[in-house]
């Protein structure tokens, strides 16, 4: 009796061809768009970074590495790197730490904590540009709420603190107009806007920590909150932390809204807030210097790719249990 055994894991050739054709049809739009919108621009940016092209010109010249040379020698670009890295190195650790701290506190409070969760997440949802404008007004040297609140401290015990002493005597800082403070204000707003997002990610991570581990830690003699954190919580949050830090870094590199809203021209007092995205915008779009704009774009891409690859590598290797 010829009984044909059908092995379900082996697809007959005709079916395979049919699936293949359909698959290509289904992925075609995505492939085309990936190619056109993601890959081609990278190549174009790479090529143009070696030219002195401007939009509207009919042709361009190859200038070799002149654009890159400029980037690494001119002081303007030095300020760009300083501003960008200051921002990233300030905003990322602080917003990650605040996110973690808020998550731990909110988690410990149970249902009441949900109110704080909502509140802290609002800045993430709100249009940054709108909130930036509000902050700008609040930071107005004279009629802004911040300095006015600080003024309230004059004549009280707080005046002992040097900051208040100077402020009460000579006037509180100009904030956005002050080249020493401008970048820190931008950092502050960046942290204000971003830490709620990190908090939510950490809260999700905390739910996956096994509760019994805390009991085991108690039995093993871990008595303080710090010891429980070190023994159980922090290690369990390893993957989450890697992710949060990476995402925060990439978002930090992309800072633009606040800088352009506050200083539409120039990149802040003494270019102290001349971050990379703004430089790309100013050079490439406003000043139509596509060559150098592309060069900055390439550098930016390299930083971001590098960060993401490190994250992937870490997740694969170190944080894997």
């Amino acid at each position, binding site marked *: 009796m010829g009984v044909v055994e059908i092995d379900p894991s082996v697809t007959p050739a005709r079916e395979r061809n049919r699936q293949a054709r359909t698959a290509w049809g289904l992925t075609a739009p995505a492939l085309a768009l990936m190619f056109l919108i993601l890959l081609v621009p990278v190549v174009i940016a790479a090529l143009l970074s070696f030219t002195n092209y401007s939009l509207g010109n009919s042709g361009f010249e190859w200038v070799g590495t002149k654009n890159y040379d400029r980037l690494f020698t001119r002081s303007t670009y030095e300020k760009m790197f300083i501003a960008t890295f200051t921002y990233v190195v300030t905003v990322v650790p602080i917003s990650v730490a605040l996110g973690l701290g808020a998550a731990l*506190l909110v988690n410990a409070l149970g249902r009441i904590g949900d109110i704080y969760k909502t509140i802290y997440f609002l800045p993430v949802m709100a249009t940054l540009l709108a909130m930036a404008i509000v902050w700008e007004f609040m930071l107005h040297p004279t009629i802004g709420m911040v300095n006015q609140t600080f003024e309230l401290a004059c004549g009280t015990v707080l005046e002992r603190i040097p900051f208040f002493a100077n402020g009460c005597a000579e006037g509180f800082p100009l904030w956005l107009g002050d080249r020493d403070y401008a970048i820190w204000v931008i950092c502050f707003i960046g942290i204000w806007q971003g830490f709620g997002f990190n908090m939510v990610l950490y809260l999700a991570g905390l739910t996956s920590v096994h509760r019994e581990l805390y009991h085991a830690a108690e039995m093993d003699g871990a008595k303080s909150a710090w010891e429980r954190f070190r023994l159980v919580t922090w290690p369990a949050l390893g993957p989450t932390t890697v992710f949060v830090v990476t995402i925060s870094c990439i978002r930090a590199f992309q800072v633009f809204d606040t800088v352009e809203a506050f200083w539409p021209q120039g990149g802040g007092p003494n270019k102290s807030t001349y971050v990379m995205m703004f430089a790309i915008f100013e050079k490439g779009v406003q000043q139509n210097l596509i060559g150098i704009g592309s060069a900055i774009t390439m550098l930016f891409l390299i930083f971001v790719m590098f960060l993401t690859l490190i994250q992937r590598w870490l997740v694969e290797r170190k944080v894997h249990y």
Partner: protein
Amino acid sequence: MARDLWKHLVLIIGAIIVLAPFYMMVSYSFKSPGEIDRGEGGFFGRQELMVDERCVKLRDPNRDEIAAVAAQYPGKTDRQIREEIMAVAETECSMRPVVFNYSKAFVEAPLLRYLLNGIIVTVSIFAIQVLVALPAAYALAKLKFWGRDAVFGLVLFCLLIPVHAIALPLYIMLAKLGLTNTYAALVVPWTISVFGIFLMRQFFMTVPDDLIDAARMDGMSEFAIVWRVMLPTAVPALLAFAIFSIVAHWNDYFWPRIVVTGSRDLFTPPLGLREFKGDADGSFFGPMMATATIIVTPLIVAFLIAQRRFIEGITLSGMK
């Protein structure tokens, strides 16, 4: 209990700092220019009648206009007539600050148009993202074809490229095609969401093959399977992705700033607000805050209503 107290204290201080700008924004949107300058009036402002200076100035009659209505004011000098007209104008141009702010928000700039643009852009982007991503995700998850690993590798590679990073070359490409200052420019670069493909693929991989085989035996084409069989299973993920996408693109300032330089008609809400700021003199801070409040409110309200979904969405987008 006592240990909880200090936790609350710390969190409350944080909440105050977090909420401060929201408070100020809404409060300023209620206040008159004078109150804003002097920082007084509590949260709602005293809502005393204020005079809209521009309205008054617009009604300031010149010589010819006075002459034209002279008949209605017998026995009065030009100056007196003007004073009377202005007095009437002042009364008629008086209104409560909140009315002034919010009406100016819609009048001085086409705010409704901006909001409409926001909706058009975000909905279009999301719709096209789904149209592009879902079939691709299905193919990668469930269909066998020789290039599958290569395509997925490509997806993983493209995850390394944030669209904002390649804004400049995209802008050049669009400029060359003459497509700047169009809806297409606002929408097209975002239509490919590699993250969406990745996310949906994860979900689709968990759908049992039997379900798909049954659909095939019922005669469904693969294309129909994507929409009739796979889509319903992934609704939670899709919802989360929708929230993530809409929020991101409603609030996006960078890309619209680059591609929309000409007509206001295409302004998205953040651009509209920015333009308002650009023109504004001091007395227009109230309306500007009213605009900001109007732009920010829809997402906040939606968030408060659907909190859990929102946070789920962000978390999902996070924990790849």
